[in-house]
């Protein structure tokens, strides 16, 4: 599957898929490939419903995204809830969940399984909350409130005593500690201060002394009283935390149901956002085996690259009514891109997304495999040919497990053409006889024996007449210019019924790319001789 994803450049699209909640991000990481049409239909329905809601009111859409973004992961273990921070997160989760559920109309709540059951728990947690903030308020315990009031009295007394002592130090020694906890004085000054009961002195360096205020017995007594009350306050806070954690844990099932609903909503809203922004359409799913139809399907990664390079992009329109299909075409004629477009659309569809096309009709496969692009790879000592055969054996074995979408790009290109053509013919025949297989082979070998079950297609190829008309007297310079020229005159259209037709654009393309005129002319002569 990873090779299939890589071939389809799926990550380029997936990077745009950014769920807002931790639950949505978890689902994203799972990279689920749906193999049930019913499940996919349900996912599409949710995306449609979310899209309709988001498109209806910009204000509500913004509000929904705000609350989804603010939703934390609620950890529902006694350890996680054993602190004010854990309770803060539980409350924040409930607060945002409640706001999100309020935003959704009843029909949408029902679709996402959003049932609010925690009004009492949220009200309890709100006793310690205002807006986003939460603290263990005195409302949870009268004793806690009383201790805090007593601590406030201590703080007031300590402040008064401190100010009194600082005033006395200023008046007696001329030392101002009002903004500093300590002062550094030279030895001479320190000598004058020696014996002062209201100052604590210690060496700073060889010639200076650090002095700090000594606040006196009354200050120490109030401070000790405060410490004692702070200890009691901590005990009461721990008791309040335990009680609140118990109340949260009692609703664990509700939290789990909310998380599941919010995950669905987050994913559906994000899929809907992508559908709107990238102009995606809902795929039509048929029971396998069924024809695959693409109408103006766009391979987004290439579309974007061409747009950036100022080149034209041609969407793919094709109807594959048979299970086994061979796509012929010249070099740079778009065979691989046609395969990639199909892979991209199918992968998006089976990952729960809508598809960049004006229409996409397909069936749901149990698996997908790609063989090709291995010319530089070796694995376990296998050559690229060996690797391809190994991949084919693995893919072929998967046919026993259910329907498989198998894409092969320039299969067996590295061996001699005679044997390659024979091998390909046999493979296509075999796949044609296996109802679990839906195979697409792109090749530049012409005239393959594909059997009666396979359909042949051809990329329309280079428009020589238009090229000659345009090119007369002009010289191309630089690779960019050459690529632009190929892009301009290559017709990236898929034509049906091309079995046995040979692709004859390679010499033209070589010429455009700068191969010497003499070589190109001689190549044409050789072609004439072999006819």
């Amino acid at each position, binding site marked *: 599957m990873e090779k299939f994803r890589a071939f389809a450049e799926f990550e380029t699209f997936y990077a745009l898929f950014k769920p807002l909640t*931790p639950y949505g991000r978890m689902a994203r990481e799972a990279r689920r490939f749906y193999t049930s049409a019913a499940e996919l239909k349900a996912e599409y329905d949710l995306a449609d419903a979310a899209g309709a809601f988001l498109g209806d009111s910009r204000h509500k859409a913004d509000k929904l995204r705000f609350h989804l973004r603010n939703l*934390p*992961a609620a950890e529902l273990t006694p350890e996680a809830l054993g*602190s*004010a*921070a854990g309770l*803060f*997160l539980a409350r*924040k989760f409930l607060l945002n969940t409640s706001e999100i559920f309020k935003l959704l109309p009843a029909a949408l709540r029902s679709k996402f399984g959003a049932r609010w059951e925690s009004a009492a728990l949220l009200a309890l947690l709100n006793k310690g909350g*205002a807006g*986003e*903030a*939460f*603290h263990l308020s005195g409302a949870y315990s009268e004793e806690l409130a009383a201790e*805090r009031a007593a*601590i*406030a009295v201590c*703080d007031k007394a300590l*402040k008064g005593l401190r100010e009194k002592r600082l005033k006395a130090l200023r008046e007696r020694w001329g*030392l101002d500690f009002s*903004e*500093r*906890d*300590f*002062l*550094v*004085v*030279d030895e001479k*000054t320190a000598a004058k201060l020696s014996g002062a009961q209201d100052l604590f002195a*210690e060496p*700073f*360096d*060889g*010639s*200076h002394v*650090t002095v700090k205020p000594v606040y006196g017995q009354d200050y120490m007594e109030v401070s000790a009283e405060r410490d004692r009350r*702070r200890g009691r*306050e901590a005990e009461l806070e721990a008791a309040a935390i335990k009680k609140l954690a118990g109340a949260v844990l009692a609703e664990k099932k509700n939290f789990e149901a909310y998380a599941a609903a919010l995950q669905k909503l987050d994913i559906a809203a994000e899929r809907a956002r992508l559908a709107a922004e990238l102009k995606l359409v809902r795929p039509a799913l048929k029971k396998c085996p069924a024809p695959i139809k693409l109408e103006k399907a766009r391979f987004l990664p290439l579309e974007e690259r061409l747009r950036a390079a100022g080149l034209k992009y041609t969407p793919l329109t094709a109807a594959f009514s048979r299970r086994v299909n061979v796509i012929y075409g010249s070099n740079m004629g778009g065979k691989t891109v046609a395969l990639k477009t199909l892979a991209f659309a199918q992968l998006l569809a089976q990952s729960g997304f809508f598809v960049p096309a004006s229409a996409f009709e397909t069936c749901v496969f149990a698996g997908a495999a790609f063989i090709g692009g291995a010319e530089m790879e070796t694995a376990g000592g296998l050559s690229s040919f060996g690797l391809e055969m190994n991949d084919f054996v693995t893919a072929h074995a998967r046919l026993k497990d259910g329907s498989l979408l198998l894409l092969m790009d320039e299969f067996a290109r590295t061996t001699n053409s005679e044997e390659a053509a024979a091998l390909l013919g046999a493979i296509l025949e075999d796949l044609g006889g296996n109802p679990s297989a839906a195979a697409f082979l792109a090749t530049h070998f012409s005239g393959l024996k594909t059997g009666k079950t396979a359909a042949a297609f051809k990329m329309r190829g280079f428009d020589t007449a238009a090229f000659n008309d345009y090119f007369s007297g002009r010289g191309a310079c630089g690779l960019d210019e050459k690529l632009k020229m190929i892009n301009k005159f290559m017709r990236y259209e898929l034509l049906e019924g091309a079995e046995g037709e040979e692709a004859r654009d390679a010499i033209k393309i070589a010429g455009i790319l700068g191969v010497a005129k003499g070589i190109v002319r001689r190549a044409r002569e050789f072609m004439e001789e072999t006819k």
Partner: protein
Amino acid sequence: MDFIKGLRDRTVFIVGSKKNAGKTTFMNYALNRLRGSAPLGALSVGVDGEAQDLVFGSPKPQVRAEKGDLLLCAETALAGADLHCEILNVYPFTTALGRPVLVRALRPGRAEISGPENNEQLGEILADMRRHGAATVFIDGAVDRITQAAAVGKAAFVYVARVEPDNLDSSAAALKLLWAATAVPLCRAGEKLPEPVIIIDGALTPGRIPGKEVKRGTLVIEDFTKVFLGWQQWVELSNRFELRFGAKPDLAAIVVNLANVSRADFEKKLASPALADRITYNPYQVTR
């Protein structure tokens, strides 16, 4: 220390020459000076693991918060804190001390502040602090984390050093480098610069200095915090190249605590009256 008034409403990084340079002590002092109508914020970057502030011997560098102050504390440190506070956010990042928690003090108390582990998290926390009303935000920088100072737009930094006989030369060299770097201009769009223009992405270490065959040109460095060179290497570099920074945090002040070193001896090492003029010496010392 009149420069402190100029720190109001800014994001101020307090960075030090080494551990126990007196950064937290300075921060507490600055917090005291700036308390007023708007809440103050405090957090740290990096975990020093320092148990004591050796400059002034306080047992642990804790922030003394007043009601309304915004602090970032580690979840674990908050459990035993003296502070009564309300929680404004719990961040999903994991640090060595647990999740960072943004709190607002509901009464005076002391707390150990903590910080995020990267600049992106720092940005999110600072935005949250501002959203909750923080005007001036202090960031207690750990040793060698001055790099963080450049991550925030319009940031100022205060450099705090403790100079002793043992580190007299290295402290003077570090300050000279800091001072020289503040004189390097910002790279401006459209500016005509001597060729070749070499852009250094990330840290400028001795290994990334262009070879001797490049005799002149312009070196564009992201910001001062990416300079990891000694004083001599910097001098050699500035002789060969025109230097430019992509960003420049504002150096608000240099605070130097001299211990067993005289001001005259230190300034002799600095050999720069202009630099010496910018230094605030021994801010806790009583002069009579």
